[in-house]
């Protein structure tokens, strides 16, 4: 059989001729080194290949071999705690093989092929099983039970399924299908560009709680929902994404570092094993998969990385888990797309991006959702997708931001002017939105407090009013405002500083349970109502704004969960006394 050969090379794009039966998205190996690439265009006898490794040194005439397999990921026990590049090569093993710098042409199995897993069969021989059905389990990490499912597309009678110790390459039994007998393994493969099938989507109805006050209280994302975080550099995209990866109440986290900094992945690798999940007290790494294709790694693999990530996310969803995927940054993915498109000399759309940018983005976010998975027991799982967007110059009118906002339902607008004054997270409370607020309000009323949605609304109104008043202050000065409005400004400032601002690097402040969020907000707003009342009775705003109880309210965010209720009681008592004191004085004068 004849191999193909290179006829043209330009950066990551190689054109080959003479390939045997080229099909779109077939994986090929290019040159002596066997650089991995994927066919992305076929024209007559020519196949255009995007190569996932640096092509320096490749020349016309070099051979090209078609593996005749579509770009796929391997799915099975061992995914959790791993760190992969954009085409699922495990970076830890790559380091053993090629040293500290990534060498080219190395192919490594994504999952440890030698490791033995304890498999517990849950079905018996002779039982009829269908696709998606759970036939047994492996305790992948102390946090996650890996459910071994009948691969999509198979059904039939089980044969020889036994509990025991297996590697992912050992057959665990087989299945007699109408087409013949098929061996079963702990791991399967799936093509990254094809969504794993589902039975149907369900409306997302519970929040993904993140421990971040501005998100959970004001702009929540639902489990199975989509959110976009656009912002200029330094505004907090990565820290927010990492906070979600740390604290979100999801079963599994897939964190895709797409075209961003190497040190940021190192930071995750260094901190996650040491942080514990607030509920289970296990290291966070045990529920996390990292995909790292940093900015200096090959650009085509960057394009693939978000598909690699979301396919793994869907796989755990199919087991019935809630999975959250963070992609930082989808703009780098889009730029990879643009670069490849440019090399293909395609007709450019806006700002050089290909005309299909919007469609590709929509297809990606469409893979999120709360779903009934393909299974006889109608398991429910979810994939939440949170994508960072890096608009050039911080201008949200550019194509990636705009196309993303069209297909995502939560918008966390990062604001450079907030970041520059170190208001973190620098999420603008006036422009951000969540389209899940209404559907989730039932959940909040039932699970947090009846009044929670009302408190949220009240706080937002204060902030909105503040923005209007600030315009007036610009014209007439603060002193010209009526007392009541001075009081409102004071309250708004408390909401901003004592509630919205949250320091990701403070041991306590980094995470706030939804209960603590509720009591904090209730306390601040109670202070606001009482001072407003006091002002009506003649008190001065300036006197109220220097009450000692305020510093106790500020301290709430730094108060450990277990001590919050006690401090709140104390505050409520002192608040009453101190405000009354001011009123008495004012009336006496």
């Amino acid at each position: 059989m004849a191999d193909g050969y290179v006829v043209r090379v330009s950066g990551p794009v190689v054109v080959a001729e003479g390939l045997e039966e080229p099909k779109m998205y077939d994986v090929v190996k290019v040159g002596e080194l066997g650089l991995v690439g994927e066919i992305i265009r076929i024209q007559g006898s020519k196949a255009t290949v995007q190569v996932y490794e640096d092509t320096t040194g490749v020349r016309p005439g070099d051979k090209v071999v078609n593996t005749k397999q579509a770009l796929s990921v391997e799915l099975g026990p061992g995914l959790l705690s791993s760190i992969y590049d954009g085409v699922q090569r495990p970076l830890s093993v790559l380091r053993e093989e090629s040293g500290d710098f990534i060498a080219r042409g190395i192919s490594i199995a994504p999952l440890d092929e030698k490791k033995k897993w304890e498999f517990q069969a849950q079905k018996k021989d002779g039982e009829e099983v269908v696709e998606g059905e759970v036939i047994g389990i492996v305790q992948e990490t102390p946090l996650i039970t890996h459910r071994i499912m009948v691969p999509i597309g198979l059904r039939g009678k089980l044969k020889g399924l036994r509990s025991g110790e297996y590697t992912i390459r050992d057959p665990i039994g087989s299945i007699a299908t109408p087409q013949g007998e098929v061996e079963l393994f702990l791991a399967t493969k799936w093509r990254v560009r094809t969504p794993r099938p589902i039975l149907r989507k369900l409306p997302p109805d519970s929040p993904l709680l993140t421990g971040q006050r501005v998100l959970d209280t004001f702009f929540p994302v639902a489990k199975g929902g989509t959110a976009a975080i656009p912002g200029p550099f330094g505004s907090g995209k990565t820290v927010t994404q990492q906070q979600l990866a740390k604290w979100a109440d999801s079963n599994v986290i897939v964190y895709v570092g797409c075209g961003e900094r190497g040190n940021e992945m190192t930071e995750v690798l260094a901190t996650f094993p040491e942080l514990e999940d607030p509920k289970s007290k296990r290291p966070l790494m045990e529920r996390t998969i990292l995909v790292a294709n940093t900015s200096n790694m090959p650009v085509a693999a960057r394009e693939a990385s978000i598909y690699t990530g979301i396919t793994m996310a869907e796989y755990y969803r199919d087991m019935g888990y809630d999975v959250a995927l963070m992609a930082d940054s989808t703009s780098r993915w889009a730029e990879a797309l643009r670069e490849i498109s440019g090399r293909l000399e395609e007709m450019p759309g806006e700002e050089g991006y290909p005309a299909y940018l919007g469609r590709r983005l929509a297809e990606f976010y469409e893979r999120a959702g709360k779903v009934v998975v393909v299974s006889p027991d109608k398991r429910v799982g979810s994939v939440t997708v949170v994508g960072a967007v890096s608009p050039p110059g911080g201008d949200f009118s550019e194509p990636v931001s705009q196309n993303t906002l069209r297909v995502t339902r939560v918008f966390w607008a990062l604001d450079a002017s907030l970041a520059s004054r170190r208001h973190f997270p620098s999420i603008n409370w006036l422009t951000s939105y969540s389209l899940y607020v209404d559907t989730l309000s039932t959940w909040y009323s039932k699970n947090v407090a009846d009044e929670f949605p009302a408190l949220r609304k009240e706080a937002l109104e204060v902030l909105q009013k503040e923005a209007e008043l600030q315009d007036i202050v610009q014209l007439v000065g603060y002193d010209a405002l009526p007392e009541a409005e001075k009081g409102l400004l004071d309250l708004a400032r408390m909401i901003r500083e004592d509630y919205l601002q949250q320091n990701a690097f403070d041991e306590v402040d980094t995470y706030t349970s939804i209960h603590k969020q509720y009591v904090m907000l209730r306390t601040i707003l109670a202070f606001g109502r009482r001072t407003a009342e006091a002002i009506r009775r003649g008190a001065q705003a300036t006197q109220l704004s220097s009450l000692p109880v305020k510093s106790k309210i500020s301290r709430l965010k730094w108060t450990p969960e277990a001590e919050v209720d006690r401090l709140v009681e104390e505050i409520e008592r002192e608040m009453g006394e101190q405000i009354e004191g001011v009123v008495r004085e004012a009336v006496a004068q």
Partner: protein
Amino acid sequence: MIPLTYKTIRQVAGPLLFVEGVNDAAYGEIVEITNALGERVRGQVLESGKGLAVVQVFGSTLGLDVNSSSVRFLGETARVGVSDEMLGRVFDGLGNPRDGGAPIVAKEKFDIVGSAINPYSREEPSEFIQTGISAIDGMNTLVRGQKLPLFSGAGLPHNVLAAQIARQAKVLGASEEFAVVFAAMGITSEEANFFMREFEETGALERSVLFLNLSSDPSMERVLTPRLALTTAEFFAYEKEMHVLVILTDMTNYCEALREISAARDEVPGRRGYPGYMYTDLATIYERAGKIRGRKGSITQMPILTMPADDKTHPIPDLTGYITEGQVYLSRELERAGIYPPIDVLESLSRLMNQGIGRGKTREDHRGLADQLYAAYAQGKDVRALSAIVGVEALSENDRRYLRAAERFEKMFVAQGVYEDRTIEQTLEIGWEVLAELPDSELKKIRPEYIQKYRKKASGG
């Protein structure tokens, strides 16, 4: 492979040559071009197909023609020989001696593009570098292995500042070997001389390697210069276990060269004519900073760029900021107010600050103090803008306090001498003095116990 020579140049377009009849040039292959007068320049293959190679010329295309010039394909990609002897030497933008000294005899040659560091091999930078400059140490701390650019503008004192940092930077309690690699791209000879004199006076020259592509040198060389510098830096960091500070200036000129090539190739331009792959290209430079687990040396990068029209959203600073671990921002406004260094801390950022500060590294109150100073300064500046409209009389008493705090911050904290080398304790003490203007209840970002411990009361209220 025997180098093949072709005389089949079909077209010379800007910095590009289109060579016909070539069937197997490698992508990235280095070529040598000889013009009619026998002068030689180097180039590199940007695109290769059956029968055609597109070559980017590094030197000047002056004297190149389609009739008598020839192109020799050398069969290898861009590599550079590096050795110990490079310390104390000055080279041109392509690595040839510029100081009249002998060429470097190197045992080993390295690929100048360099493979990406495996993210799994990286070590988180966390060692505090004291630069002696309060606006950096106190507010935007630099750590070893970081890439922290200076965002500057034409005529601002970025060179003086860079030299001061190079002169004063130290890791407390450590006495390890260090080196400076300096790469100039398109700067004037006067600027280059400034740095050479600086290095000479402080004795740093013998620990430095300089690559100079000056404004009068061919602009295309600039595409190679930073890569040569970084390859050299990697040699000293990873083979010789040194801590290397790499200064790259001016990245704006580097980006202009990229744009020139892209335009010559008729590529679909990204923003403002810069190529769509400029982000990736810059990343292959900046991401070469760092530390590697189990290796002793490190590479700290300080790129300098001048923002066209002082515009931070221009693609050059914008893409840089998206890659680097923060930025030190020089402000024309502060410069006009006579403040040196004119660092605008609100626009500046060190993303690795948290790893380098706190108990055991700088001081436990550092984070909170810095956060409070940011907030206070930001608010003070707002008040300043407001008072320009409504007058100081219309301000509340609290606003006036912030106004004073912002004044003190600029005059006492940010401003310092070119030869003033402050310890981190001095920097933090000055910070507390600035905050003395504000009552306790305003210090919401500092833990109460630190306020108690470190607080200074305003003199005279």
